C-alpha cells in the first residue's frame, strides 16, 4: 500500500460537475480519433473516475455505498453518450467515404459485348427444340448429293417434269447430272430409311440450293427443315394432327392450319400446309393477299415408291414427311423485307436479334 498514492474522495457536487463537463466535451468531438483520446482522458485509468473509485476504500460503509453508486451511474451515462457519439461519427465518416467514391454509371466507356447468333440459327434451334419435345431426333446429310438421293430414290426418275420444277446446280464432276447440290433436305429421308431402324421420327434441318436469281424473296442458297415419320398405321389424319401440333408450338395456340392438295413426287397424297396469317391473325392483309392464310410448306404421306426404293415394305409401314423454309419463317416473323440481309452479315443487322 505504500506505493499507492493517496487519493481524495470527491467532494459533494464534484462528480456532477465533472459529468456535466464530460458530457459537453463528448458532444463537441467531431472525429473518431479525438473521441478515442477523449474517452481515455474521461474514463481511462488516470481519469477522475478511476481516481475517485480508488478513494472509496478509505470511506465509511454508508458513504462508500452512496458515492460508489453515484460514480457508477455517472460513468454509465458518460459511456452511453460516448457510444452514441461514436456511432454517429462512424456513420458520418462512411457517408463521406461513399460520397467520395461516387461513380456516374452513365459515363461508362463501352467495351465489346457478347456476339449474336445469326437469326437463322436462332429460328432453327427453336424449331429443333419443338421437335425434340415431340420425340423426334435430329438427322443430317451431305449438301453435295448424288442424283439418286436427291431425285431417283424420291420417286423422281430422270426426265421427270419435277426435276425441272426445282432447278438444280449440277456439279462438273462425274457423268452429266449425276452429282448436284441438294435442292431439298429430302435426301436425308432416304438416308434415314436406308438405315433401316423403324419406327422413325426425325427432322433434318439444313442448307439447300436452287438455281434462282437472288432477289428480295429468294436466295440460291437457303435453309429448310424436313420432318419424317415412319411407323405402323400412320394416316393422313396423323399428318394433319402433327402439322397442327408443331404449328401451335411454334406460333402459339391462336394459329390454325389447313391442308390443301398439292403435288410432290415423293408424297401421295400430297398437300401444302397453310397457317393463319401471323400478321393479321386471319383478318386479311397485304402479306396474305387478303386471304387470312399464308403458305408455310409442303407435306404428304410418303409415296410407297420412296419406301420401296429404300427397302421398306409399304404394306407394313406408312409414314409422312413435311418440310418448310427456315429463312422464310424468320422473314415472316420479323417482317424482313429483303432476304439478302441474311448473307450481307452487316453487324447492324446481326446485332438486332
Amino acid at each position, binding site marked *: 500500500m505504500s506505493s499507492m498514492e493517496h487519493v481524495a474522495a470527491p467532494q459533494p457536487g464534484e462528480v456532477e460537475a465533472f459529468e456535466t463537463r464530460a458530457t459537453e466535451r463528448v458532444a463537441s468531438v467531431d472525429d473518431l480519433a479525438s473521441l478515442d483520446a477523449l474517452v481515455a482522458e474521461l474514463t481511462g485509468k488516470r481519469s477522475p473516475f478511476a481516481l475517485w473509485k480508488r478513494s472509496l476504500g478509505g470511506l465509511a460503509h454508508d458513504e462508500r455505498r452512496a458515492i460508489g453508486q453515484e460514480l457508477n451511474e455517472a460513468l454509465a451515462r458518460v459511456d452511453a453518450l460516448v457510444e452514441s457519439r461514436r456511432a454517429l461519427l462512424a456513420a458520418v465518416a462512411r457517408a463521406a467515404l461513399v460520397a467520395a467514391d461516387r461513380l456516374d454509371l452513365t459515363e461508362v466507356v463501352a467495351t465489346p459485348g457478347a456476339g449474336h447468333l445469326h437469326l437463322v440459327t436462332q429460328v432453327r434451334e427453336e424449331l429443333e427444340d419443338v421437335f425434340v419435345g415431340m420425340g423426334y431426333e435430329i438427322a443430317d446429310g451431305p449438301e453435295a*448429293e448424288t442424283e439418286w438421293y436427291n431425285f431417283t430414290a424420291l420417286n423422281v426418275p430422270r426426265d421427270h*417434269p419435277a426435276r425441272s420444277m426445282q432447278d438444280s446446280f449440277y456439279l*462438273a464432276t462425274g457423268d452429266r447430272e449425276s452429282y448436284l447440290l441438294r435442292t431439298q433436305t429430302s435426301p436425308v429421308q432416304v438416308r434415314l430409311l436406308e438405315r433401316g431402324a423403324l419406327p422413325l421420327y426425325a427432322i433434318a434441318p439444313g442448307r439447300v440450293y436452287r438455281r434462282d436469281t437472288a432477289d428480295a424473296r429468294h436466295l440460291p442458297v437457303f435453309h429448310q427443315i424436313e420432318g419424317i415419320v415412319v411407323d405402323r398405321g400412320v*394416316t393422313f389424319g396423323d399428318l*394433319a394432327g402433327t402439322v397442327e401440333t408443331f404449328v401451335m408450338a411454334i406460333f402459339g395456340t391462336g394459329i390454325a392450319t389447313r391442308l390443301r392438295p398439292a403435288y410432290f413426287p415423293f408424297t401421295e397424297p400430297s398437300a401444302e400446309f397453310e397457317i393463319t396469317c401471323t400478321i393479321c391473325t386471319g383478318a386479311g392483309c397485304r402479306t396474305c393477299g387478303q386471304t387470312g392464310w399464308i403458305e408455310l410448306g409442303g407435306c404428304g404421306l410418303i409415296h410407297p415408291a420412296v419406301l420401296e426404293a429404300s427397302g421398306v415394305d409399304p404394306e407394313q409401314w406408312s409414314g409422312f414427311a413435311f418440310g418448310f423454309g427456315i429463312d422464310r419463317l424468320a422473314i415472316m416473323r420479323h417482317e424482313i423485307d429483303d432476304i439478302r440481309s441474311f448473307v450481307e*452479315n452487316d453487324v447492324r443487322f*446481326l446485332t438486332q436479334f
Partner: protein
Amino acid sequence: MRVPLSWLQEFVPLATVPRDHEGVRDLGRVLDSLGLVVEGIEHVGDGLDEVVLARVLEIRAIKGAERIRQVLVDAGGPEPAEIVCGATNFAVGDVVPLAKVGAELPGRFVIGRRTLRGVVSDGMLCSARELGVGGDESGLLVLASTGSPDGPLPAGVEAGMPLAEHLGIVPDAVFDIAVEPNRPDCLCVTGIARDVAARLKLPFVVEVPAVAPSGAPASGLASVAIDAPEACHHLLARVVTGVAAVASPPEVARRLILAGMRPIGAVVDASNYVMLELGQPSHPYDLERLGGHGLAVRYARPGERLVTLDGVDRVLGRHTDALGRTTDVEDLVICDANGVAIGLAGVMGGAATEIGDSTTRVVIELAQFAPVVVARTAKRQGVRSEASARFERGVDPEGLTRAADRFCALLAAAAAHGGARAPVVAPGDLDAHPVSTPRRHVRVRVGRVNALLGTTLGADEVEALLAPIGFLARRAEDVPRSDGEGDAISPRQDGTGQQDVVLDVEVPSFRPDAEREVDVVEEVARHVGYERIAATPRRSPFVGTLGARTVRRRRLRRVLTGLGAHEAWTSSIVDPSLVGRAGAQHPVVAIANPMVHEESVLRAHLLPGLLGALRHNVAHRNPALRLFEIGRVFVPMEGDGLPGESEHVGVLLARDGDDAASAVHVLGVVAEQMGLDREALVLDQEVPVPEPLVVLGTHPSRRALVRAGAGTSEVLGVLGEVDPRVLEEFGIAGCGRVGWLVLDLGALDEAPARDRRARPVSRFPSSDVDLSFVLDDATPAAALESALRTSAGELCESVRLLESYRGPGIPSGGRSLTYRLRFCAPDRTLTDADVAGLRAACIAAVESGLPATLRG
C-alpha cells in the same frame, strides 16, 4: 392457266355471277381445296357502270389555275355537262370516256361532285388506266376525233352510250390457276370444269358436234406417216378446204385474250382455242406450202437446222452442255413428204409453212408424243410453249378426234360470223396410230383407302367420289384380273374381321399420273376434301434427342458468341477469282450450270466469305468486330466422285488489338469449353510443303497448325493471322492485324477429350515460384513450358507465362520468359525446403534439356 368463268360455265352450270365478287371468291376457294391453286382473280368489265361516251364541246381556262381546265361535254343529256379536267391530250370534237357522279371505278374509287377553284365538276374524264381497260395513263382515252362539236360521229359511237357497250366488254372473272405437274388434265378449261363439277355435285357435259365432211377424200389431198413410233404414238390430220381469211367471232377472240393469248386469225385461233378448251395441242399447215402435201414424224439428223415460228435458227439432233461436251440427241421433228423438217414436234412449228391470209386449204395436225421426248427437246432448246407444256405432261390419247371436230366446228362458226363461205371438211381422217394406249386398271382396297386416310368410307362412297372424275370403280370380283395390271395386292382383313372390298378402278385416259393404288387414294382424299379429314395426334414412342453433334455445335456457337464473335452466314457458292485472292491457287469443285461466273465454284474454305463480310462492315464504318461461321466446305475427290465435304468453323478476329495471340486465346477457350484435353493440342509452326489447303491466306510467320497431339499427322485446323497481302487484296489492309482460326469440326469431334473424372481440390495453402529463363528465338516457348510441366511433377497446379521480355540485358536473338509455377500438395502445407527442391529440379531440367539459362 388462265380460266374465264364464262368458259367454265359452258361445261358446268355454275350459278356464280362475275359481278358478285364474294361468289367468285367462293368458287376460287373450291378450286383451291381441289389443289387447283388460284393465284389471282381478275374482274373484267368492273367499274364501268355510269361510264359513258362524251363529246368535247368546249374547253375553257379556269382563272388562276394553270393545270386544270373546264371542259363542256355532250354526254347524251339535254344540257352539256361541265367537267374539270387536268389532261391536255384532247381537242374539241374528241370523244372521251366520262365517269358520271356516282360511278365506282376499279379500285373502289367513287366519283362525286367536286368543286375546284370555284368551278363545279360533274364527274371525271378518264384515262384507259383509270378504267382498267388498258395501261395508258398519259392522258384521256380518246375514242374518236370528229374535229368539231357538231360534226358527224363515226358508226358505233354515240354520246351517252355506255363505254362497256362501245368496247364490247362483257363482265367476266378470270381465275389464274397454278396447275401442278401431275395434272395434265387440268391444263384445259374442261378438265378444271370436270373437277369443279365433281366437287359441287353438278353435271359436267362436253358436247362437240362433228362437222359433216364432203367433197374429195382427204387421202387424195395429203398423207401422214410416222417413222419414230416409240416417240410419236398417234398422228391424226384432217384437211379443210375453202377456208377464208376471216377474224374469229368476238366471243372466241375475247376468251383467247382473257386466257392470255392473242387472236390472229380464224385458223390459228381455232387451234389455240381447242388447246385451251380440251387440252389437245394442234398445228395447222397451209397445204400449198407443205412439200409433197404430206406430214411425217422422224428424229432430226445430228446438226440439222430449223427456223421456228419465233424466228430462231435452231441446231437439232446435237447438244452441247455447259462444259462444252457435245453429244448426239434425239430431237423429234415434223417434216413434209419430201423429208424437209417443218416443225419441232410438240414444241413449235416452223416458219416456212405458217398459215397466211392467202391460205385456203388447211391441214390440221394432232398428235400424241412420248412426254419424255418433248420434255428433253424443249429443255435443250430452252423453249417452253403452250404445246410443249401439255405434251411433256401427257395429253389425253383418246382426245384427238374430238379436238379435230372442235377445230372444224370453230372454223365453220368463224366463216359464218365473217360472212364467208362455209369451209369444207374432206372426208376420211389421215390417221397413223402405231401405238395404242389402253386404259389402265388399278386395284384399290377400300380398307387401304381408310387405313391411309384415317377415314371410314364405304365402298359405295369411294365409287361415288371417283365416278364424276372419270375413274370407274367396280367390285374386283366382278372383273376378271389380267396379269401385270396395277399393284400386286391382296385383300386384307380389316379390324372388324370383315373381308376388305377390292375395287377394280379403270383410270380415265386423261389421267396418265394415276398409276397405282395410292394415286387413286389421293383422288378420294381430294374429293372428300382435305379439310374434312379429321386431324389425329400421333405421338412418337421415343424420347427426342438433339444428338451429340447438334449439342456440340450449339455449345461451340455459344462459346464463340461469348468471346464476342457474331455469327455470319456466307454463300457456299463463290467467285472462282476469290480462290487466288485468298492466297494460293487450289483445285475447286465447279458447278456445271452456274447462273453467273461470280457464283460458279463451291467454297473450299471459309476465309474468303468471312473476309467479304468483314469488308462489307469496314465499308459501313464498323471495322472492329469478330465474326464466325460454321459451314460446309468442299474439295474435289479423285476419280470423279462426290466432292469431299467437311464442316468447318472459321473465326475472324478484327477487334482493336486482335492478332494471332487472340486466335490462340480463342482456341484455348474453345478447347476448354468443348471438353478437349487442352494440353494435348499442339501448335505446330512448321507447315509442311506443299501447304495443306487449310492454311490458305494465313501470315507465313504468324500461323500454326493445330494438331491433336505431338507427333500426330492429323491437323485439326490452323490459327494465326490473315496474311496482310490477302487483306490488301480484299481492300481491308487498314484493319491492321486480323486474327484467324479455322477448325475442322469433324476432326474436332474426334479429338482427345479431357478426363471427365473430378480431381480433388487441395485444402492446403499453395506456393508460387517465378522463374525467368533466357531462351533463344529458335526454340518455341512451348518447349520451355513443357519442360517445366514435366519437371515440376504432380505437385504443380499450374504453369503460366507471365512476361516475355526483349531488350537491355538480354542477348539479341533471344528473349526472357518468366513463368509462374504454383505448387500445392493434397495432404499438407509445403515446406520451404519442398519448394526449394522443386525449384531446383525445374531449373536443372530446363537448363540441361534446352538452350536456356536462368536469368539472374
